[in-house]
């Protein structure tokens, strides 16, 4: 029983990070209708930002997180303003193409600047554990989990309670009407994309604390974020977080009780079944 709980806890910790990774992608997809194939690259850049802030400037990684987020926000804002906004009204799949191209460029530049070596962010307290009633909870992943929860909750509050958040949601539903209420589309869209990038950056920084970063890490993270974002309902922060947690736990349980080769089959199988069941109920003639 204790083992089961431990596995679930491990899964939750990983899942929290998954959820955070997917938050930005879901936000950008749900609001801007942009399928951001460079999302993984943004996560990667966030990871490196925190890495260098820690190793060169000696900043504690958790303190460096807001700075990295700010930097990524600016990058995202600029990308939307100058590049993605130009094709915003063209067929949906074009954003896929453009972000694909941007991802290729970003990965190349990263590999040029940072070399392909694997790195980890290793603060002095990295190896410590918390003991909670027989369960072993590693400190850094737990802190990362906490940060992920805080960010997800903040996004949810921001979208629901602030004026800007409401403007973002209004633009998502009906841009024409939102315009009439004084929303400046270019600025709101750039803001949204910037926020998505900032969240990706945060995920990257936290990822670097629990796993290794490399210029190519984005490749596998984008599809995973893609999946979790959809499971969670795109621009619903709490749903996406829940999706991430669910996937994390499912993976942990499958990996522990069945062979690890089944992990992907189960997670994707569950996902497929869930989606088909849920949406086909919505789509039957009412």
């Amino acid at each position: 029983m204790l083992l089961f709980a431990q596995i679930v806890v491990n899964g939750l910790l990983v899942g929290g990070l998954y959820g955070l990774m997917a938050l930005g992608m879901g936000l950008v997809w749900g609001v801007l209708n942009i399928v951001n194939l460079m999302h993984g690259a943004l996560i990667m850049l966030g990871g490196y930002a925190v890495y260098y802030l820690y190793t060169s400037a000696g900043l504690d990684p958790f303190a460096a997180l807001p700075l990295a987020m700010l930097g990524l926000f600016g990058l995202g804002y600029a990308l939307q303003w100058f590049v993605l906004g130009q094709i915003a009204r063209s067929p949906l799949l074009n954003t896929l193409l453009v972000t694909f191209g941007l991802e290729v460029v970003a990965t190349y530049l990263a590999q040029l600047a940072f070399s392909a070596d694997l790195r980890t962010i290793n603060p002095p307290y990295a190896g410590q554990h918390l003991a909670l009633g027989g369960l072993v909870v590693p400190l850094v992943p737990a802190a990362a989990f906490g940060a992920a929860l805080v960010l997800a909750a903040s996004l949810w509050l921001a979208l629901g309670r602030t004026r800007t958040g409401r403007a973002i949601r209004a633009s998502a539903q009906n841009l024409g009407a939102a315009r009439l209420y004084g929303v400046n589309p270019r600025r709101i869209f750039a803001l949204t994309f910037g926020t998505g990038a900032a969240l990706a950056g945060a995920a990257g920084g936290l990822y670097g604390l629990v796993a290794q970063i490399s210029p190519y890490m984005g490749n596998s993270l984008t599809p995973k974020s893609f999946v979790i974002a959809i499971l969670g309902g795109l621009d619903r922060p709490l749903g996406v977080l829940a999706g991430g947690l669910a996937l994390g736990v499912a993976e942990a349980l499958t990996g522990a009780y069945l062979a690890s080769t089944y992990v992907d089959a189960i997670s994707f199988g569950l996902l497929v079944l869930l989606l088909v069941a849920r949406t086909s109920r919505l789509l039957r003639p009412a």
Partner: protein
Amino acid sequence: MTVRWLATALACAVLAAVPLAARPTLTQYGIEALLLASLAQAWNILGGYAGYPSFGNSAFYGLGTYGTAVAMARFHQQFGVGLACGAALGMACACAVGVPILRLRGPYFAIVTLGLSAMLAAIVRNVAIAGRNIGLILPIFRSDTLFYELALGLLAAATAAVALTARSRFGAGLVAIRENEEAAAVMGVATTRFKVMALALAAVITALAGGIHAYWITFVDPASAFDSSLNVKMVIMAVFGGPGTVVGPVVGALLLSGVSEWLASAISSMASLFYGLVIVLAVLFMPKGLWDAGRGLRQRGLRYFGENLRRYRL
């Protein structure tokens, strides 16, 4: 019309002659490029015409790969039989999952197709007859030229299929579904049936490509058979060239393959950088794909680019 036929015949003849004149590496690159172009065309049927962008056609590619491999390696069948098995597997899968999956729209459809591919890969990893994680080895047949011509033949057949679809009642139905599915249903289009047919056609072409590739490479394993990077590639090539057109995906695929190959050999160190930049700039200035750009340039000259920027920007 006859000009178009002549041009197509000429292009085919030229392409067919490549292996006779070129270096072996060029022929090999050609096989990959032609198979990718077939994948892009197959994607085009459901994604370009019906408006259902699949991100998991690699599922059918993998089924075609394994169908052929198992038939040839385990049951010692001929290549033709193997291909037929692969194609049959692909079609069966499409018909089986088509109805529930095609009820989903947009992102949900995309994700489920992706999930399907990953699921099949994971299942195959655990099946003994398919060689589990280790894979299978097929009988050896060395002739790059033959595989090249086969790949070219598949591309020609796929393009012919798309051309026939585009002109047919079936194609009109697919386009109506894309433009407004609810209105299409009310006007008599049997939407579910048409979508499943489109998926099945795409699945067969994709599976055949997988089968040809399997015999050429002589070795299959789950990772390469259900290679998910293929999904992005085929979508990008079709969209770059012009989704919903007959020739667009072919042009897009061959051009992108060519550019990437040339960059790799000419400026190998910065190839990725330029490849990415080329794509970004191309989409910014030609948001409707290359094919439409070609037509636009002929009709309206350079103003085409300016118009695009103004029409599609936020």
